């Protein structure tokens, strides 16, 4: 989808990604709920755009509050964020872990349709309400339920373990494992530069050695260990999606905005099995669509935020996006191309493995990260954006490559 008019994102905000790894996190104590995270993120964005009075519509991306928190109807939380949002249109959208990306798509469409000049887009998930073993049941809802019975206890780690196993066959197990360990290292090193990241305080010295731990099929999956997985996270992210008029209304200058220049939104049949476990075909389609609509090639990207719910998903993502040829994703990572100082820094604040994965918030979090990088607001995690490659890409995936939202952003000049 090529935007038919100028469209921007501004005023991003991420809460801390809360969960194991953060000092503040104590599973035995009562913790903040949905309300806390929605308020923190929503109010922070409103504070940067001149208040709720400037907002026309609200949208919340969320996957499974209905089970994690026994709470539906999240659209109606918007007026709780700020009474100035009372009686304004607001809705909740869901597409598993791509719910945040769908919130962005929904907001972009509202602005393009002319129904809104300013949309407050949020994403949220509060998942530490249950132990991981029950959380696995809930997250399995991103797959087709009739397959749950034969699936792994940790359903999605099981799915991506199968993908990893197939990839080991294709490129060699040792190389693939090493690339996954490198992925983990990059993720943690980047997270250490971002104070809201779940792994911000990770002090492990030899990250790659740690990540090379042999997977244990008895307690977990055949081909993945826990370091290959994103963690269980609570958190919310918010960003405003605006037209040129909206930008003026909010009193935000162009240099503090990032432009949305291309969108790819694709789904595939949730009841069907992947044709090839080593290829993420829906990501490939959506990323290509986003870049095509933006009129750019993959070589023009300065940075990418990709959906590494598992290290293997990150590596397969490099191939699907077209950064690496098929079967060469592991080499691409091992050669250091995706590292902070590499050819194209990927997941510069840690991604899902390092920053965290509050599922319904992730798509919005990715956009906030790109916005920070493109406007010089990324603090210690800031990378330089080359003038000849002023583009960033987000890839947000729901389920096992079933719903994908890819967005191309451009640094404003």
């Amino acid at each position, binding site marked *: 989808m090529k935007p038919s008019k100028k469209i921007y994102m501004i005023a991003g905000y991420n809460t801390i990604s809360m969960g194991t790894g953060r000092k503040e996190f104590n599973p035995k104590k009562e913790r903040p709920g949905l309300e806390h995270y929605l308020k923190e993120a929503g109010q922070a964005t409103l504070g940067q755009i001149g208040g709720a009075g400037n907002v026309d519509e609200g949208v919340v991306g969320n996957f499974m509050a209905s089970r994690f928190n026994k709470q539906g109807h999240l659209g109606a939380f918007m007026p709780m964020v700020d009474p100035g949002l009372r009686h304004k249109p607001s809705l909740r959208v869901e597409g598993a872990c791509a719910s945040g990306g769908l919130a962005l798509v929904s907001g972009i469409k509202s602005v393009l349709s002319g129904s809104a000049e300013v949309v407050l887009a949020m994403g949220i998930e509060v998942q530490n309400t249950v*132990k991981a*073993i*029950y959380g*696995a*049941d809930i997250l*399995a809802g991103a797959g087709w*339920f009739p397959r*749950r*019975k034969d699936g*792994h*206890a*940790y359903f999605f780690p099981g799915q991506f373990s199968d993908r990893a196993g197939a990839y080991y066959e294709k490129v060699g197990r040792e190389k693939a494992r090493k690339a996954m360990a490198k992925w983990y290292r990059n993720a943690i090193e980047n997270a250490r530069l971002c104070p809201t990241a779940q792994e911000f305080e990770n002090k492990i010295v030899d990250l790659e050695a740690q990540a090379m731990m042999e997977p244990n*099929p*008895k*307690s*977990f999956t055949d081909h993945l260990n826990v370091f290959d997985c994103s963690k269980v996270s609570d958190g919310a992210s918010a960003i405003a999606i605006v037209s040129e008029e909206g930008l003026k209304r909010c009193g935000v200058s162009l240099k503090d905005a990032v432009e949305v220049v291309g969108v790819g939104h694709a789904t595939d049949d949730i009841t069907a099995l992947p044709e090839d476990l080593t290829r993420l075909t829906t990501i490939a389609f959506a990323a290509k669509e986003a870049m095509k609509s933006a009129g750019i090639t993959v070589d023009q990207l300065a940075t990418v935020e990709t959906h590494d719910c598992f290290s293997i998903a990150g590596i397969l993502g490099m191939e699907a996006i077209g950064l690496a040829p098929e079967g060469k994703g592991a080499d691409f990572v091992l050669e250091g191309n995706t590292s902070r100082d590499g050819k194209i820094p990927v997941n510069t604040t840690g991604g899902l493995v390092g920053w965290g994965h509050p599922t319904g918030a992730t798509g919005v979090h990715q956009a906030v990260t790109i916005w920070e990088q493109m406007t010089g607001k990324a603090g210690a995690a800031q990378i330089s954006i080359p003038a000849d490659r002023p583009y960033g890409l987000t890839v947000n995936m729901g389920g096992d490559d079933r719903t994908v939202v890819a967005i191309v952003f451009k640094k404003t000049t």
Partner: protein
Amino acid sequence: MDYTERLSNVTVLGAAGKMGSGILLLSALEVADLMLKPENKGKNFVINAVDVTTEALPGLINYIRGQVLKAAEKKVVMLRKVYADRQDLIENYDIIEAYINDVMSLIRPGTRIEAAYESTLVFEAVSENASLKTKLFRQINENNPRKPWIFTNTSSVPIGGLDKDAGLEGRILGFHFYNPPAVQKLVELITIGTNPEGMKEFAMQLAKNMRKVVVPSNDIAGFIGNGHFMRDAIYAIEEATRLSAEMPLHEAIYVMNRISQDYLMRPMGIFQLIDYVGVDVVRFILNVMNPHMPDENLHSQVLDELFEKGVKGGQFSDGSQKDGFLKYEKGKPVAVYSPEKNGYISIEGFAAKVDGWLGVLPTTAIPWKSLVKASDKDNVAALAFADYKKSGDTGAALALAYARRSREIGAKLVSDGVAHSAADVNTVLLTGFFHAYGPVNDFVL
């Protein structure tokens, strides 16, 4: 009778107690594993949970349910395979629930000993009273045509005597868990010459399936664990009594507790350990052991006095510590019992003075928590002892003497034929008492 059949009808005597409830849990998990094997479909399995305290049984069932839940959550990967053919069980939650129900369906709580009359295996964890044990065993043996095997959890009573007194013809062995049985890795196994064929092998297999470390001990009162602990405790009490010539007894108790914890780098001080086990229980075990030790006097006047004054230690039903030698707040000692004052005296009031008297604790004496995480614990511990030897401070001297006595006790358990080797003694202290290094170590010399 094969392994499965032997476990088809189990009774746990004293099931509501601290040890009994843990043994019930481990047995239930093991029997459930058997019951859920496809080849055992249709076979009947029963575990009788027998205890005289009716009031304790509902709490026991809740405890077991909670523990089975925890166990199930840890092994869902395996359980999903076990229940693969149950199409109605889809989510982990469903499978965990089904497993809990299956385990709980095995357990028949009750107060009547008659439940054991059909059992093939009896775990005994009643109080440490030889005549009570004998009476129960005799009654079961006379009424049970299946000639059950009896696994007693006694920590001190000689097995051979129980066998003879109850007329069991060798169908008894010591299967001594450590507290709490669900957590502590150690089982002390005490066999006797008259055990029937296959009994020891069955016990070894069972312990292995329960993921326990087995240390064989000879049938001498107190075995290895209490053989060491009781003598260690008596030494500490005697040292405190000796020091009470220089300071009030409660301060001396504080000194020896601190020496045994901070200087010896153990998980808790010796007086805290006595309180944990129970002043009354320690006294009882000593009374059981003493008649079997003609060359020693395993008796403590101080323990008698405390016991008579009703100071017993042990735990409340929620697991929190009752006051004994020490008084506890949130699990930490805050005061010491003074027999003269018949009350507790706050540690804060005298700690600085007594610590000054002890001298400087070398920095090489790291907390037990850090020491257990070290990869070369013996070498790290040795550094502290090297510093004690160089130091002229009173604390260091007391620590060396304490460690040497502890070593001597361990070595004597080997020379007396209680333990087969010094390594076995060390394993018992490492796995049953959570020490970071074994007592029989040359670096303390």
